């Protein structure tokens, strides 16, 4: 399929004209709703107010959502916001694209190289390997202040279970200037971010550790970060599909740039649940449709899932996990894509008790469905200085325990529901973001080690997981 996307791109100049508002209100959403209804895909809750099947167990329903999402991509297409034309694909083109998805991905390089492949549902590879079944990602997202920037980064680099990183902490202020998009200062800030991150990796003895930073910056600033002693060939860049099946020239330029650079690229299935794609069921179809559209339009080498609640920003809520898990399950069952970077990417609460439970909920579901683990960032990724390596470690440990237990999806589903029981109420009452600690409140800033109070909570949650979930986590 390589190179084929150029044929699709040409359609931004020739496809049917549709204004963005018309696309959203009269095309995209009605089609999404109809398709979801046609395939009978629903979100259902038990009497406890939690989803009855947050980890997909029913293979027939997984097949249904897969067909629904493919059909939706074909019928809806992708809107180009610049030309206000829709790129349509045929069913055969989508099927071809799914057949030709990358089968493995290698990130990092030299001694920090890491390769992973496809894993199916309940497919844990070699048992008791002492290793997480597949790819553990650490993620720093949100603003990080200059005084702790390197320390937060080092807290992840020091975690041996972390296979790859997303160093996405934005430098918001530099040399007396607040950074603004498209300014020369933005370029300077990206140069500084890359040099800081690389310096931390070198000092941590992992000079070529993969950085998949998805910086919310202009392409020109991203390009500036690649020059000189900039990013490594083993790093990756985000090629964006705008939420809800849209693209534009800028995103296409990013994709072209990183493809010609020979860089690894990644994309994420999204859905702002409760907004444009509606509730959880339609959002799940949308999220999966975005993964399919990504591989058809850009062919990134790796995929992730990042649905969030739009009413109270959460990537670990009952709705978010439902959406992410169904999209992952269908993509893994029907393609040979390397393990998707699974949910949750950032927790709703700050670093603490609920943060660990949110991390566990994401990791249990993801790993049982063949995805990798993610973790580290808290406070809805909006709070300042709320990321720590211990979260990524914990996610990887949960993933390893799931693999070693050879967990069936039904068991995983029960466990995730129990995990949700620990924190969903704080998402419902919109107080989760106030719980827990910031990095500087729970790490020793000299040694970059978790303080005793954090270690106690970390161990407490593990103990409760053993007792209440029956998951043997060390």
């Amino acid at each position, binding site marked *: 399929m390589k190179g084929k996307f150029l044929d699709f791109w040409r359609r931004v100049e020739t496809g049917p004209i549709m204004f963005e508002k018309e696309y959203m209100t009269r095309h995209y*959403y009605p089609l999404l709703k109809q398709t979801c209804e046609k395939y009978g895909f629903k979100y259902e809750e038990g009497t406890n107010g939690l989803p009855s099947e947050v980890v997909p167990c029913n293979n027939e329903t997984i097949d249904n959502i897969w067909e629904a999402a493919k059909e939706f991509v074909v019928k809806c297409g992708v809107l180009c916001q610049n030309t206000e034309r829709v790129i349509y694909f045929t069913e055969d083109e989508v099927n071809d694209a799914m057949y030709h998805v990358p089968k493995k991905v290698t990130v990092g390089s030299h001694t920090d190289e890491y390769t992973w492949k496809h894993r199916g549902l309940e497919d844990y590879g070699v048992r008791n390997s002492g290793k997480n079944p597949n790819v553990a990602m650490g993620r720093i997202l949100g603003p990080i202040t200059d005084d702790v920037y390197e320390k937060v980064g080092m807290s992840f680099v020091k975690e041996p279970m972390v296979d790859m990183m997303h160093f996405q902490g934005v430098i*918001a202020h530099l040399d007396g200037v*607040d950074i603004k998009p498209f300014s020369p200062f933005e370029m300077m*800030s990206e140069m500084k971010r890359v040099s800081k991150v690389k310096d931390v990796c070198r000092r941590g003895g992992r000079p070529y550790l993969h950085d998949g930073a998805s910086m919310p910056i202009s392409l020109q600033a991203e390009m500036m970060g690649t020059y000189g002693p900039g990013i490594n060939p083993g790093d990756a860049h985000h090629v964006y599909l705008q939420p809800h099946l849209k693209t534009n020239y800028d995103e296409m330029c990013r994709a072209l740039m990183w493809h010609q650079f020979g860089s690894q690229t990644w994309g994420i299935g999204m859905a702002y649940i409760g*907004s444009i794609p*509606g509730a959880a069921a339609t959002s799940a179809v949308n999220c999966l449709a975005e993964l399919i559209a990504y591989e058809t339009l850009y062919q990134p080498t790796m995929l992730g899932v990042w649905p969030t609640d739009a*009413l109270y920003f959460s990537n670990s809520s009952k709705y978010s996990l439902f959406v992410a898990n169904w999209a992952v399950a269908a993509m893994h069952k029907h393609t040979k894509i390397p393990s998707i970077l699974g949910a949750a990417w950032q927790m709703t609460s700050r670093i603490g008790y609920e943060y660990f439970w949110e991390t566990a909920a994401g990791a249990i579901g993801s790993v049982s469905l063949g995805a990798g683990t993610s973790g580290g960032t808290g406070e809805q990724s909006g709070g300042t200085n709320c990321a720590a390596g211990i979260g990524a470690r914990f996610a990887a440990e949960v993933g390893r325990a799931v693999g070693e237990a050879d967990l069936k999806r039904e068991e995983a589903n029960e466990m995730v529901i129990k995990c949700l029981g620990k924190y969903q109420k704080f998402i419902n009452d919109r107080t989760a973001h106030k719980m827990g600690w910031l990095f500087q409140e729970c790490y020793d800033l000299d040694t970059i080690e978790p303080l005793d109070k954090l270690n106690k909570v970390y161990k407490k949650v593990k103990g409760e997981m053993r007792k209440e979930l029956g998951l043997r986590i060390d």
Partner: protein
Amino acid sequence: MANKDELSDNLREKIKTFDEDGIEAAIKEMCDAGISAVETVAVIGETMNYLGKLFEKMEVALPELVLAGDGVKRGMVHIEKALEETGEEIEKMGTVIHGTVQGDIHSVGKDMVEMFLMTSGFDVTDLGTDVAPRVFIEEAERLGADIICASALMSTSMPVQRDLVDFIEAKGLADKYKIMVGGGPVTMAWAERIGADGWGKDAVEARTMAMKLLGKD
């Protein structure tokens, strides 16, 4: 000819089914039938409020609300005409202009805020994304806004919110408008630092803050 209750029920039904054309037609019918514009606006307000509650429960999606809102906006032409003729006055919750600041093309959070404000009775104009401070001011002047809302979804676009506040002060308009800022990385501390009047953590809080700023809470 249908009576007032039937026409009101028809308007409610058109709004609840997001029938943009039907909403405008139903409003026109009520105005043509000589039903007080105040009463028509009350039906609209009560039904949009009902949809807003469904939206909060995710039983209605944002694109559906947009259709309903557009229908109401189109219908307002008939209401304004009727008001002119009768000399009646309707109490408005307030006029809000809202956009995502220059350099930032994120739109979902902005759209959410607008839906919450609209269903609570505010007259909301969406300026879109990547909006320069100058455009915020020009549109606020043109539309007679009460509140200027500026969203920033990236920490690198937050300084443009500060630019907006600076521009408004430089033009001597600080007393004329309430300025609200919001977006994922935007905090109350930032809002205070740049001199904004209000901040909403998310769409729900933005609505509360807008009502508070205009003394409608």
